[in-house]
C-alpha cells in the first residue's frame, strides 16, 4: 500500500512537472503583456511590468479589440456550430449507412486532407471574387460545413463507440432516422463532438490567412488580422508589448470555451444508455 502511494505520488509529480513546462511560457507571455517593448526584447521575467496602460493605448491606436472580438465571434461561433453538427451528420451517414459512393466520399475526404491548403488560396480567392463574396463572412463560415478532418475524426469515433444495437432498437420502436441521429447518435458522440468543437473553435478563432486575404475593410477584420497590423510598425520592437497584450486578449475567449466545454469530453455511454 505504501508502494502504491509512492508510485501514485511520483506519477502526480511527473504530471505536475509536465504541466509546469507547459504553463511557464504561457505565463511569460501574459507577463509580457504588461511590459514595454524595450523591456521584452531585453529579457524575461515573471514579475509583471508597469506598461499595461501604454500597451493598451498602443493596441487601441491600431484597432479596437472589442470590434475584433465581436467580428471573430460572428465568424467563429457559427462556423464551429455548423462544422460540429454537419460533420457529425456526415460522419454518421458515412459510418452507418451503406450506399453507393460512400467509400468514394470517404476516400475524397482523406485525399483532400493531404493537399497543402495554402496553395489553393488563389483559386479560393478567385471563386469568392466571382461570387462577390469579398468582404463577406460567408466564405469564412459556410465552408466549415465541409470540414474534412472533423468528419474523418467523428467517423472513426462513431465507428468505435456507437453500438449498432442501439440504432436497431430505436428503429424497431419506429423512430425516424433524423430523430435517431439527433437524440441518440449526437449525445453518444458528445465527447468527440466537444473535442472537435473546441479544436474547431480554436482553429476558426485563430484563422489568419483566409480572413487576411478576403477581408479588406478595417471594421470587418477579425481579431488575428487586426493583431497582425501591430507588426507593421516601422520599429517593430516598440509594439512588442502591445502584441503580447493582443495575444493575451485573444487567448481569453479560447480559454473560456475550453473551460466550459471540456467537461463534455467525458464518458457518455453510461451503463443506463444501453438497456437492451
Amino acid at each position, binding site marked *: 500500500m505504501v508502494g*502504491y502511494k509512492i508510485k501514485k505520488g511520483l506519477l502526480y509529480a511527473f504530471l505536475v512537472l509536465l*504541466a509546469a513546462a507547459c*504553463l511557464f*511560457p504561457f505565463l511569460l507571455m501574459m507577463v509580457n503583456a504588461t511590459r514595454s517593448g524595450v523591456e521584452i526584447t531585453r529579457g524575461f521575467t515573471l514579475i509583471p511590468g508597469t506598461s499595461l496602460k501604454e500597451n493598451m493605448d498602443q493596441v487601441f491606436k491600431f484597432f479596437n479589440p472589442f470590434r475584433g472580438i465581436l467580428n471573430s465571434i460572428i465568424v467563429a461561433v457559427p462556423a464551429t456550430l455548423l462544422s460540429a453538427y454537419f460533420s457529425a451528420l456526415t460522419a454518421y451517414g458515412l459510418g452507418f449507412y451503406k450506399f453507393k459512393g460512400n467509400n468514394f466520399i470517404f476516400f475524397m475526404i482523406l485525399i483532400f486532407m493531404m493537399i497543402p491548403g495554402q496553395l489553393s488560396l488563389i483559386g479560393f480567392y478567385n471563386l469568392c471574387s466571382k461570387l462577390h463574396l469579398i468582404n463577406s463572412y460567408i466564405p469564412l463560415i459556410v465552408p466549415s460545413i465541409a470540414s474534412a478532418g472533423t468528419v474523418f475524426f467523428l467517423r472513426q469515433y462513431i465507428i468505435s463507440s456507437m453500438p449498432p444495437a442501439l440504432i436497431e432498437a430505436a428503429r424497431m420502436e419506429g423512430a425516424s432516422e433524423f430523430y435517431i441521429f439527433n437524440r441518440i447518435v449526437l449525445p453518444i458522440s458528445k465527447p468527440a463532438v466537444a473535442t472537435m468543437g473546441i479544436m474547431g473553435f480554436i482553429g476558426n478563432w485563430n484563422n489568419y490567412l483566409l480572413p487576411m486575404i478576403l477581408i479588406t475593410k478595417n471594421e470587418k477584420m477579425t481579431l488575428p488580422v487586426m493583431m497582425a497590423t501591430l507588426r507593421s510598425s516601422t520599429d517593430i520592437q516598440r509594439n512588442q508589448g502591445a502584441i503580447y497584450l493582443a495575444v493575451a486578449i485573444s487567448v481569453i475567449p479560447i480559454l473560456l470555451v475550453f473551460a466550459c466545454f471540456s467537461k463534455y469530453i467525458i464518458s457518455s455511454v453510461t451503463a443506463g444508455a444501453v438497456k437492451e
Partner: protein
Amino acid sequence: MKLQKSSKLTAYNRWGYAFVAPFVIVFAIFSVYPVLRTLYLSFTDLKILGKGNWIWFDNYKRVITDKFFWRALGNTLRIWGVNIVLQLGLAFLLVIIFSDVKYKMRGLPVFRILYYLPNLIAATSIAFLFNTLLDWRYGTFNILINSIYKLFGATYNPIDWIGSGSTAPYTLAVIQSWMWFGNSFLMLMASVQGINREYFEAAAIDGANRWTTFGKITLPLIRPIMMYVAITSLIGGLQMFDLPFLMVSQSGAAYRDVQTVMMYLYRFGFTTGSTQTGYASAVAYMLFLIILSVSIVQYKFFNKER
C-alpha cells in the same frame, strides 16, 4: 421475411445520401474548385499574374531533379520522425496514466487544459521565446548547463542548439512535440472516454490486470482514433512550416538542415522576389503525392486486423 428485412435495410441506407448531401455540396464548391485550379496551374509557367504558358510536365521534372527538394523532404522526415515518436509517446503515456483502473488519477480536466496551453501560444512567440532561451552564447539554457558543469569542475563547450545544423533539427522536433502532445492527448483521451464502461467492468470481474485491460480492450477500441491521430500527425508533420521558418535564419548555417518541403514551397509560392506560382503548384502536388503514399502505408497498417 428475410427479403422484407433486406429491402427495409436498403430503405434505411438511402438516408445516407441525405446525411452526406450538405457536406458534398459545400465541399464541391469551396474545396474542389480551388484544388483543381492549382492542378491546372502546376502545368503552366505562371509567375505572379496573368496567364502562364502550358508547359506540360516541365515543373514536375524540375521538382524531381532538384536536389534541394529531396533534401527538404529528408529534413522534413527527420524532424517529423523524432517529433512524432516524442509527441505520440508522451500522449500515450498520459493516456495510460489517466485511464489506469488501479491508480484512478484525478485532475484530468485541469491537466488537459494545461497540456493544451503550448498550442495556444502563437508560433511567433514560441519562436522568440526559444530562440532567446537557447541562444548559443547568452541563452539561459546553456548558462544553466555551464553552471552544472562547473559544479563538477568540468568545462562546457556551449552547444549552438538552433544555429548548428547538427542539433537544430532535433531541437525543433522537441519543441514541436512540446507544442502538440496536448493535442494528441486530448483526442486519444476523448476516445478512451468514449469506451463503454461496461467493458472495463466486465474485464475487472474477469480478473484482468491493468495491462491486459489496456492491451485487450482499450487499444483495440481506440484503434480507429489512433489511425486518425497518426494520419493527421503525418499530414501536419509533413507540412511543417512555422517553427523552422521563424526560428532559423535563411542566412544561417543551419538553414540547409532544417528547410522543410513547406518552406521550399513557400519560397516559390509566397516569397517576394521568387514567386513562381506554377512551379509552387507542382511542388504542392508532389508533396501531396508523397503524403498520399505514406498515408496509404499507414492506413493499411491500421486496417490490417479489421
